[in-house]
């Protein structure tokens, strides 16, 4: 324990380096089955919750300081509190299981290993928000999750945890598992709602916010899988227990997903505020000992970090103060062999492909930025291109309809901020040279 704690972050509650809460059942045989779930305290929080007043649950989640695990980090209890208390219109709870942010791979394993924790969380959250319908919008490509959730929902219905008069409480809830069809933008909550209504997944203007007019123009809350799966533990453990992990403004445990050039990539559940240095130690360090070059704290939409950021506390405040965002705690780790301009080009091509086309800055901006980057990586770029890129970024950031545009500029601006020399070297090396040779050097990083 001492080794991993060597760089303990100030202001973080003292705990073990790893705090399995959401991942606690994952090692159990048939962890996804109702039987295993019930043997390990499953659906006990639901009984407590249904005996309470709905508003007590919202207050509890506020007191616990649970923040949205889908990337934005908005306080979940506050979000729930936006829902009207009257029932003049149906209320909806929508689960965002459209995990697609590059690098993000926490919700898919959670739903595969422990779908009932999500379902129990859904019932508690729906009860708190007076919703009798819950939709789980799962990414279409995650077929096994869809299958598993569907099976778990059926199990929950037959055990009386879903349907009419749940556990004799008088509360009814129907859950529909809905498969998406391949569109990153549907992870944006209002685009998800449009998609769920059977339309093209394009974001809506806010306000009105979903709590006022969401699904079918009715009061709706959209929450991430990991957020809702945390709720049963908050109910069972209470606010103080939840706050005994993590940092004051970002309490609780969080699933950190390590991928890329590390010895043991995978899912590590640790308190918020844990640093990459600590996580790397748990993951066996850099793959083959090749030094770290750059990484993302929470997916490709969060500005890059470098080896200088190993001790940044990975919580919502810490990542922001250091110039990035916590996002989804998707830690993509790249070693020295990877070319930054190449990586940035690949991500930009992703945003170009996934831009929904609704607003001009994002649709045109991503398209042009990808072209400029392709040109540079191919060896036909000039130093002016760097300024052009930054100029286009400036016209996309904050001027796009939704956060996709903001996310698209993150790798570019942060890549140039920390590795401008590498972009410049690419232009230098291109000068007067055969382009094929230049592109070889630009791609040196791609070889393993």
């Amino acid at each position, binding site marked *: 324990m001492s080794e991993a704690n060597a760089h303990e972050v100030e202001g973080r509650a003292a705990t073990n380096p790893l705090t399995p809460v959401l991942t606690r059942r994952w090692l159990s045989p048939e962890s996804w089955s109702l039987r295993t779930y019930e043997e390990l305290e499953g659906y006990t929080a639901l009984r407590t919750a249904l005996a309470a007043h709905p508003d007590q649950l919202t207050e509890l989640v506020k007191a616990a300081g649970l923040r949205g695990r889908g990337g934005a980090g908005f306080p979940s209890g506050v979000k729930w509190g936006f829902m009207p208390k009257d029932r003049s219109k149906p209320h909806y709870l929508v689960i965002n299981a459209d995990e697609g942010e590059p690098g993000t791979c926490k919700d898919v394993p959670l739903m595969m290993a422990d779908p009932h924790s999500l379902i129990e969380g859904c019932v508690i959250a729906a009860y708190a928000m007076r919703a009798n319908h819950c939709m789980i919008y799962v990414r279409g490509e995650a*077929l096994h999750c869809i299958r598993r959730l569907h099976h778990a929902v059926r199990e929950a219905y037959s055990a009386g945890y879903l349907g009419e008069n749940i556990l004799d409480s008088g509360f009814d809830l129907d859950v529909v598992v809905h498969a998406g069809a391949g569109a990153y933008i549907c992870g944006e909550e209002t685009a998800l709602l449009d998609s769920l209504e059977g339309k093209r997944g394009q974001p809506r203007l806010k306000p009105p916010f979903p709590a006022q007019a969401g699904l079918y123009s009715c009061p709706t809350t959209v929450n991430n899988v990991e957020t809702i799966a945390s709720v049963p533990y908050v109910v069972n453990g209470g606010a103080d227990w939840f706050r005994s992990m993590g940092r004051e403004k970002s309490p609780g445990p969080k699933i950190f997903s390590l*991928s890329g050039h590390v010895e043991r990539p995978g899912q590590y559940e640790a308190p918020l505020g844990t640093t990459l240095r600590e996580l790397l130690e748990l993951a066996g360090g850099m793959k083959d000992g090749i030094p770290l070059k750059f990484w993302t704290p929470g997916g490709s939409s969060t500005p890059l970090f470098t080896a200088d950021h190993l001790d940044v506390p990975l919580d919502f405040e810490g990542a922001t103060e250091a110039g990035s965002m916590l996002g989804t705690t998707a830690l993509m780790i790249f070693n020295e062999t990877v070319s930054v301009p190449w990586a940035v080009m*690949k991500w930009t091509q992703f945003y170009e492909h996934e831009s929904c086309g609704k607003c001009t800055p994002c649709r045109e901006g991503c398209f042009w930025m990808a072209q400029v980057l392709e040109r540079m990586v191919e060896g036909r770029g000039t130093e002016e291109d760097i300024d052009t890129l930054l100029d286009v970024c400036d016209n996309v950031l904050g001027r796009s309809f939704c956060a996709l545009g903001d996310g698209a500029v993150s790798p570019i601006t942060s890549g140039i901020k920390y590795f401008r020399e590498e972009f410049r070297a690419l232009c230098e090396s291109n000068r007067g040279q055969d382009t094929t040779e230049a592109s070889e050097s630009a791609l040196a990083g791609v070889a*393993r």
Partner: protein
Amino acid sequence: MTEQFDYTTTEHVVGPEAADPAAEETVFDERVRAEARLIVERYPESRSALLPMLHLVQSVQGHVTAEGMRFCAEQLALSTAEVNAVATFYTMYKRQPCGQFLVSVCTNTLCAAMGGDEIYRALSEELEAGHEETAGTPGAEGSVTLEHAECLAACDFAPVLQVNYEYFDNQTVAGALETVRALRRGERRSPTRGAPLTDFRDTERQLAGFFDGPGAEEAATASAAAPETVRGADQARERGWTAPPMPEEVELPPIPDKK
């Protein structure tokens, strides 16, 4: 060297083929119509059924055809233009006949850096097919459609590919080639996580929300345990690390005063 994948296609252009009501009734028979109604019943408002219904159309025809769009429009009282707008927005709706197996290789940054680009290139050469192109006669035994996919949410298993949306993790060029050659012979390799492979059309049936194919029950309970997934949990257990213990009694906050 640099992969410049061409995303621009004209496949979304629906041909001017004339509607033939009789033929459409044969393709989308009473059983399919009944299933379409079942999908509608799941939702408070009928239009929500459109995405699953397009998956149902693909389970019948192997891709979304003009008649498939008309079928959806008719079931949901929409115009075909509205259905077309939706069908062309989402990448999982194929507008060209799809193979028995759809092979999706992640070529997003992280997978690409870990070897995904090489895998895509090797498979493309092997199959003599580019993005969304098919080796063999689409739908026939051993036909394989290739595509490069965006991040498949399995980055800890990079590089990954999917066959009919089942995960094949930690791929190598050699391993991926072997898998695809087996598929071409009509042999189904087991995915790393998920259920045994079925056909693309069966897969689409599940995406439409029907889990009644052969082996559906086994598929739902097929193990998805993978070392990467449980690495943190494993290490915590080995070292005896747990989260702080929960208190015996938890008091809920009082009911807030009504404003």
